[in-house]
C-alpha cells in the first residue's frame, strides 16, 4: 500500500536539498579562506588588473609577498610583539587561573559556586565597554603603548577561560589522589604542585594554547592600547596597513601568517573548545 518512493536510480528530494545545502555551506565557509590564500600568492598583475575582472587563480602564482614579509621590519617586530604579548598573557592567566580553578573544584566553601560562576561570566562583559576605562587607567600607570599593558588586558579576557577549562580538568582527577598524598605527609602546596599539576598537564596545555590564540588574534584592546605608539601586534599592524595603503596581496600574506598558527592549534584543541562552546564559555 504505502510506497516509500525510494527506488534504485531515484534520488529522494530531501537528500538532494541536503546535498545542495552542504555544498552551499562549504562554499560560503571556504570562499573567504580561498580568497585569502589566492591573494597572498598573487602577482601584481592579478591584483591590479586595470579594469579586467580579477582572476580566480593568479596568472603567475608567486611567493614574493612572503619573501617581502621576511625583510619587512614592521612585520617582524609586530610578529615578535604578538608572540611576546600572547606568551605573557598566557603565563599571567595560567599562573593565577590554575590555582584558582583547583580551589574552586576542591574546596566547598559557602558561596563557592556563585563565585565560580561570577569569575567565569566576567567573559561576557563587553570588551568595547571596558576598553576606554582600561586605557584611561593604564595612561596613569604608564602601561599604554607597552606590551605588558596589552598582556595584562588580554589576561583579563583569558583568565575566565583558564579557570573554566582547568576546573573541568581538575574535576576529572579523583579526589583520592591528593588526599592520599596528604595522608602520606605531603603539604597541600606540595600535593598541588607535584601531584595535581603534572596529572593535569595535558588539559592545562590545551588551556594554554587556547589563551595564547585568544591573545594572538585579539584586536580591540590591542588597538586601543597601542593606537599611537610605535609598537603594534600583528592584528593592529594589519589595520594600520589597511588604513595606509590597502595593498591587497600584502594584506592577504600577513593574514595568512596570522591565521596559520590559529588554524593549526585550533584543530589540536578542538575537543576542549567543543565542550567550552556547549557550556557557553567560548565567545
Amino acid at each position, binding site marked *: 500500500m504505502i510506497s516509500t518512493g525510494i527506488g534504485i536510480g531515484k534520488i529522494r528530494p530531501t537528500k538532494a536539498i541536503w546535498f545542495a545545502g552542504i555544498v552551499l555551506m562549504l562554499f560560503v*565557509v571556504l570562499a573567504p579562506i580561498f580568497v*585569502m590564500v589566492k591573494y597572498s600568492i598573487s602577482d601584481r598583475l592579478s591584483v591590479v588588473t586595470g579594469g579586467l575582472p580579477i582572476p580566480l587563480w593568479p596568472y603567475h602564482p608567486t611567493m614574493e609577498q612572503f619573501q617581502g614579509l621576511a625583510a619587512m621590519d614592521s612585520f617582524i617586530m609586530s610578529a615578535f610583539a604578538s608572540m611576546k604579548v600572547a606568551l605573557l598573557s598566557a603565563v599571567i592567566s595560567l599562573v593565577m587561573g590554575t590555582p584558582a580553578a583547583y580551589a574552586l573544584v576542591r*574546596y566547598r566553601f559557602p558561596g563557592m559556586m556563585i563565585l565560580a560562576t561570577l569569575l567565569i561570566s*566576567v567573559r*561576557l*562583559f563587553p570588551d*568595547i565597554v571596558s576598553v*576606554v576605562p582600561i586605557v584611561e587607567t593604564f595612561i596613569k600607570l604608564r602601561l599604554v603603548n607597552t606590551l605588558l599593558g596589552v598582556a595584562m588586558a588580554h589576561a583579563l579576557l583569558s583568565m575566565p577561560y583558564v579557570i573554566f577549562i582547568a576546573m573541568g580538568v581538575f574535576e576529572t582527577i579523583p579526589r583520592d589522589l591528593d588526599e592520599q598524598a596528604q595522608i602520606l605527609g605531603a603539604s597541600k602546596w606540595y600535593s598541588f604542585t607535584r601531584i595535581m599539576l603534572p596529572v593535569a598537564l595535558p588539559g592545562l596545555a590545551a588551556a594554554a594554547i587556547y589563551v595564547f590564540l585568544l591573545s594572538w588574534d585579539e584586536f*580591540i584592546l590591542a588597538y586601543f592600547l597601542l593606537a599611537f605608539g610605535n609598537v603594534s601586534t600583528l592584528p593592529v599592524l594589519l589595520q594600520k596597513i589597511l588604513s595606509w595603503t590597502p595593498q591587497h596581496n600584502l594584506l592577504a600574506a600577513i593574514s595568512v601568517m596570522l591565521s596559520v598558527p590559529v588554524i593549526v592549534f585550533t584543530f589540536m584543541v578542538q575537543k576542549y573548545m567543543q565542550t567550552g562552546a556547549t557550556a557557553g564559555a567560548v*565567545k
Partner: protein
Amino acid sequence: MTSYSSNLPAVKNKGIMVAIRRNIFGIIILAPAALYLAGFLLIILFKVVQLALTLTGPQGDLFPTAHHFVRLSKNPEFQGAFLRTVWFTLIGTPLELIIGMAAAFLVVGEFKGRGVIRSLMILPLAIPSIVTAIMLYIIFDFPGGHVNDLLMGRHAFFPFQVISHPLDWRGSGFFSLMVAMFGKVWRDMPISMLIILAGLQAIGKDQYEAAKTLGANAFQTFFRITLPLLTPAMATVLVLRSIEVWKEFIFPFILAGSYPLLATLIDQAYHEWRNPNEACAIAFILLVLIIMSTVLIFHVLKWLRRRLVRV
C-alpha cells in the same frame, strides 16, 4: 540562659574562623585570580560611570551631571548609530541562530565524510576576526572586487548581468552593515552550530521512535519533539549571540567605517572627538541596552518554552 545567648555570636564567629582556617589554602590560591578579575571589573565599572557623569570645565570638574547624555541625545551621529545598532542586532541575532541551526541540521545525521565536513565547518572559528574582516573588504571591494565582478557577469561560468554598474559596498549604510553582518555571522556560525548540535544529540532516539510508532509525520516530529526539546540550546545561542552582536566592533570598524554602530562610535568619540567622557557615556548606554535585551530575551524564552512544551 543569658550567658548562652550572649555566647552565640562568639560561637558563630568561631565557626567562621574554623571554616576559614580549614580552607585557608584554598582561599590563598583563589585570591590572586579573584582579585585580578574583580579589581579590573570594579575599576572598569567605576571609571565608566565616573567619566560618563563628569563634565570637565575651566572651573574644575562637575559631578554628577547628565551633560554628556543630553548632548549625545541631540547629536545626529549618535542617533544614527543608535538606530543602526538596533536594527543590526534585531536582524543579526536571529540570523546567527538560523544559520547555526541550518548548519547543525545539515551535519547532524550519519553520512560518509562527516568528520571532515564538520572540521571544515569549524574553520571560521580558526580565522581571526580581523582577517575575515579584511578578506571581506577585499572581496567586496569597489570597483573591482570579486563580488562586483561576479554580479556584473564578467566571469565565463556565470554570464548573467545582475547589476550594470559596480556597487560601492562601503558607500551605503545598508550594504556596508550587511557585509559586516555577513562577516559576523560567518565567523560565529561554528559556535552556534556546536551548541545546537549538542542540543540535538541530547534528544533521545527513543523519543523519535515513540513518535514514529504513534504515526507522527516529519513535520509533527519536528515541531512537537525536536523544536521544544531544542529550546534550551536555542536560548543559549540567542542570549550569547545577542550580547555579541550588540557589542560587535571589528567588522563594522573595518567594513562600515562611515556608518558607525554604538561600538564603533565609542572609538570615534575617543580617538576623533578626543572626548573620553562621551565615549564612556556611549559605553554606558550600550551596557544598559545589552543588560535590558538579555533580561528581555530571557523572559520571552521562558514564556515561549512554557507555550511550546505541553506535557
